[in-house]
Every structure is written in C-alpha cells, then in structure tokens.
C-alpha cells in the first residue's frame, strides 16, 4: 500500500491521498487527511460504497478539485487533485504498481485447528 501511495502522492497536481475501508476507517493515512471526521460523513460513505452504482473506478471533476477513487482489494484509494490535473498518468501509475502487489491469500478455514 505504501508503494502505490508514494507513487501517487509524487505526481504533479496531486495534493492528497488516503486509503480507507468500506466502513470509512483510514487504512493508510500518512498525511493525516482525516477526511471522515464526523460520524455522519462515515455513514454517508458507507451507504455510497454499498450502492450498486458505485464503480470500481470513479473520476469526478468538481468546481474546486478532482477526486479519483479506485477500489483496491477491499479498500478504496482516494486521490485529491486540483482541476488542472490529468487523471491518465494517475491511472497508469496505479495500473503499473497494482499488479505487482501480492494479493491477500484467502484464509484457510480450519487452519487454527491444526
């Protein structure tokens, strides 16, 4: 996670990134963005990520900035950029690094018994 995070944060026009789980908890937040600082925001995030419309990859352009969300395993990488940014290089960076990351192995059910 650190590798993908460092690569993303080094790109031009990126001013913040955070990895959160579907419950809104920060999985990796070295910049302490603390974006979900109220219970209501967490609730909203949870309801959004559970929506069937919520995509694997989402690029949103707003008046004050751009938000790129990418589902990685069971978590979400959120990247905050200014409006001048290009999301193509960001996607490419993620595409290059993500396959290299070891996938979490499924737990064997009765492992603890032996």
């Amino acid at each position: 996670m650190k590798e993908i995070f460092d690569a993303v944060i080094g790109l031009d026009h990126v001013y913040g990134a955070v990895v959160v789980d579907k419950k809104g908890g920060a999985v990796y937040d070295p910049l302490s963005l603390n974006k979900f600082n109220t219970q209501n925001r967490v609730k909203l995030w949870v309801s959004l990520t559970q929506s069937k419309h919520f995509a694997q990859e989402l690029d949103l352009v707003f008046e004050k900035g751009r938000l790129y969300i990418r589902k990685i395993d069971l978590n979400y990488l959120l990247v905050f950029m200014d409006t001048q940014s290009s999301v193509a290089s960001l996607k490419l960076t993620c595409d290059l690094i993500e396959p290299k990351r070891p996938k979490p192995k499924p737990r064997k059910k009765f492992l603890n018994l032996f």
Partner: protein
Amino acid sequence: MNILFFTNDPGVQESIRQAMAGKKHSLAMATNYQEAVNILGHVFISLLVVDFNMSQIKCKALLAHTQDQYPDIPVITLSSFPLDQIDLPHNTFASYVGTPFVGNELKLIIESEVQNLVQGGTITNVSPPSFAQLLEMEGKSCILRIFEKNSLKGGLLVFRSGRLVDARYSGFRGMDAACRILAWDETDIFIQNKDYPAKDRINSDLQSIIVKSVHMKDESGYKAAPDRPMLARQGAFPEKLGKHLEMQLGNRTCILDVFHDPAAGKRLREARALGAIFDLGRLKLGCADNGTENGLFVAGPVPTTIKLGTQSPQEKITLLITRYLDTI
C-alpha cells in the same frame, strides 16, 4: 435586509420612506394585521417596525404572532406615547422610537438593529452546505441569514450547539426550508451569535439534510423539464454539447453518443454527495468504470451521458466539457 413596517398612517409611511431613502434595505408596508401576517409568511423579513398608534389589540396580536413564529425577528415599536405608558412587556420588542421622529433617529435605530443581526460577521461567496458543516463540527449556536447571490432570495438557518434546529424560506419551514436553502450554490451569509428559543423543527442530522437537498435540487431540475419554457433550452443541452465537442475535436468518431439520460440521475446524486463530504463544490462531470463499460456523465441542466469509443481522448474531452459547462 427586508424590513416590514406595520402602520396605516400615510404621514408615518412617508416619514419612513424619507428616512430610509438611499439605504440598501427593502421596505414592505402592511396596513392591517392579516396583510402583515401574510408578508411575514412569504417574504424573508429580518426586522419588524410596529406603529403603536394603530389599534393596540392588532399590534399586540402581531407582536405575539412574531414572537411565537419568528423569534429571530427583532421588533422596533413606534409610538407617540412615552415608553413607560405603553402596555407591553419589555422583552417583546428590541427598541422604541417616539413619533414624530427627530432627525435621523429612526434610521439610526434601524441601522443599530441591523448591525445586531450581523454582529457575528459576514461571509461572502460561500456555499451553505460547507459552512453548515463547519458550524456542526465546531458545535456553534447562531442564526444565519443567507442570501443567494444571483436571485437575492433570502432564508434563515438556526444552529443550536452545532445542530440545525430550524429554517425558514419563502413560506417553507423546518426541513423543507433547510433543504431548499442548502441547495443554493453561492451565497452571502450574515451571522448572528444568539441562542434561539424556538423548538427543534428539523430533528435530523445535517448530512442527511444535505443529501436530501442535493436530491431535491436534482429532481427539481429534472422535473422542470417537461412543462416549463426553460425545458426546451435544457432539453437541447445534450445536442448542443455534442455539436460543441464535434466542432472542437474535428469529428465525432471517438464519441459514440451524447444523450439525455434520466438513469444517470442516481449516479450524479451519489457523486454530488461525495463532493459534499469533501467540500469540493459543484459537480461538473464524472467518469465511472465498473470493469465492463465506461462512460462520462455530465451534470448539465439535464443528466447527460456520453458514450466514448475505445480510442477516445478522454482527458481532452473532459477538459472540453468542463470549459463548456463554465460558459452556459
């Protein structure tokens, strides 16, 4: 600020007009109780001036109504009787002016009351949801008088310990008013640090109200399409956008389709909710990729979807759409 004067005396009315000439406030005159109540119910009044030389019963009834329904509105009483001869509890009005007025007396007292309404400061060009979230986080108790920049519509939001407890706007009250006010884009906000005595008319958390207001805004724009004159212009948006992109890109082979897509409404609402969480302002467009298909959804006057070819210059198209939305 809108100021309501309750008087049927033409002389007093003329004196008020002269006293307030050149001031930026809007004046409304009511000559009877029912008219005053109607104005209070439909116009965003910030200050009430009552002429006690009229029927005392009607004046007292109006004061009682104001105190019960609009405790945020300060009342200035005008009377030819000395203050100690007016049969009214002193907590029912904010100031007293003897008639006939002397010099700038009325003007100065009105200005002083208006200053009290904005003693917490003024913030310009701000989006109401962002500011409301800030107040919630800080647990503030205050009254916000909010004016939309473009239309000059006005409304009121009341916070108690960071909780939104009351709102009013153009005949709407509580949740209905809050959703409408929070849907405004750019506003000037006047802050009054004051505890508000009225009951909680909203009973909901702020985030839910913001999401509801986003939905309401979206749906009202969408509903407006079939039967308003605006509809024709709104309905033409996808076609105009398509032509603009064709002209800018030289051809449309990379764009498969541009169309009004009511189904994109839900996706746009969710994207707007994300923008509200992170205070990113108005949504312009988004691109969703669920692994099997991707497409652009545009937050224009009507929900619009653009189907892209596999070789489309998505970044360039995004930039062109963003600029186009700024021009309409």
